[in-house]
């Protein structure tokens, strides 16, 4: 954050020209920068740490293990059914902390804006981020804003990093899956990817499907109350369910077997996948998690999930098996076995 001398009033007496679009000067560190940051962030977020406007936020850490994560958000379109890049930027990082079993504490946000980006859009996005931080219970404490020349950035890129604290006895890792574990999923897959695709030029379709972007830390909290013995948590974002399962199978060196008829899918999402020739297993989610839980704890955890608003459709989709370590297999609708491989490149709509 820019160092603001205490001598300068943050309420300028000269009426400001209200800019409609981001200018290079907004990232320059001068008057225009300061005004932007004041208007967008300080006035909006209720954070002492943030408003201190130091080069960095300073705080004490609890005497427990910490989780620390970062992610960058470059999604297009920026606004999509049910949300925008701001939701993803907060919830995505909160969820990465939650997948470590951590309760979220502090968030940073770095913006790279393209010259000419509409300030109204930026306000909308930041307002969304504010609401998302409140829902998740995480505090935005530091950030940065840069502007690049027109043509050198895709409107807006956001990077967020997050710090959280991990309760004692919680030991979650993608390497901890073990034979016999049940694999739990909290609800319908592929909503987010299909919501994005419905707005893409050349593929538009009418649907009521919205992104499932949500902060999962509350859900994880209730799951951990039911059992501290959860082995793995993972949010299947880019690459979908299939990619996450493959990563875990490889990290833990175990086999995974899931059942096609157990995987929850909204009817409209199914329809969209059918007409575009897409496999929902590979489509992104932003409010879903997979949990690997020892069999004896599975029922309790499942019930805890089903009692939570973000887990009403929670279901057991499969188990960890000793066959084919490092790979994922699926029992198809017609009862045969099929290997679910890693995604190759981007999944593209097809007519063949």
């Amino acid at each position, binding site marked *: 954050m820019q160092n603001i001398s205490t001598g300068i009033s943050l309420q300028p007496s000269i009426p400001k020209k209200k800019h409609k679009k981001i200018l290079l000067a907004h990232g320059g560190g001068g008057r225009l920068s300061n005004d932007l940051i004041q208007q967008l962030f300080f006035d909006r977020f209720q954070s002492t740490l943030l408003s201190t406007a130091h080069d960095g936020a300073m705080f004490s850490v609890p005497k427990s293990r910490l989780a620390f994560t970062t992610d960058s958000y470059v999604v297009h379109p920026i606004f999509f059914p049910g949300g925008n890049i701001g939701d993803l930027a907060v919830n995505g990082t909160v969820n990465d902390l939650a997948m470590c079993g951590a309760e979220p504490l502090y968030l940073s946000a770095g913006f790279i804006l393209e010259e000419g980006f509409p300030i109204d859009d930026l306000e909308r996005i930041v307002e969304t981020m504010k609401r998302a931080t409140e829902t998740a219970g995480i505090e935005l404490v530091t950030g940065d804003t840069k502007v690049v020349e027109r043509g050198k950035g895709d409107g807006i890129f956001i990077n967020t990093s997050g710090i959280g604290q991990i309760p004692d006895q919680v030991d979650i890792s993608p390497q901890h899956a073990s034979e016999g574990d049940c694999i739990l999923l909290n609800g319908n897959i592929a909503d987010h990817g299909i919501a994005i695709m419905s707005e893409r030029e050349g593929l538009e*379709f*009418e*649907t*009521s*499907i919205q992104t499932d972007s949500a902060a999962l830390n509350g859900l994880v909290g209730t799951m951990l109350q039911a059992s501290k013995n959860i082995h793995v948590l993972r949010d299947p974002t880019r690459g979908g369910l299939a990619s996450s399962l493959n990563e875990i199978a490889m990290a833990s060196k175990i086999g995974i077997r899931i059942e096609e008829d157990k995987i929850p899918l909204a*009817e*409209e999402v*199914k*329809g*969209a996948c*059918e*007409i575009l*020739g897409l496999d929902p297993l590979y489509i992104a989610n932003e409010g879903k998690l997979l949990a690997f839980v020892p069999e004896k704890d599975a029922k309790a955890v499942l019930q805890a999930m089903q009692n939570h608003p973000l887990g009403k459709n929670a279901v057991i989709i499969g188990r960890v098996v000793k066959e084919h370590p490092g790979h994922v297999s699926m029992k198809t609708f017609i009862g045969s076995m099929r290997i679910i491989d890693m995604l190759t490149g981007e999944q593209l709509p*097809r*007519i*063949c």
Partner: protein
Amino acid sequence: MCLAVPGIVVEIDKSLFPVMGKVSFGGVQKSVCLDWIPELAIGDYVIVHAGFAISRLDENEALESLKLFKELEEKLFGQDEAQ
């Protein structure tokens, strides 16, 4: 080749050329060219490829096929019982 999916016709606009309409696939609605299917009515099912209805889905034939499959089950089940 030829990914084509059945959907239900929810809108037809004969004033356009070619005739266009909306088809619903499990609730997702897409704009589809209906020009090649004569006497199409709302509520009919069509098979859609690359944004075009290539045939009307004959619901009687569909049910007939499913019925034949059921009869097959009874025949096999009957054989099992007899054994």
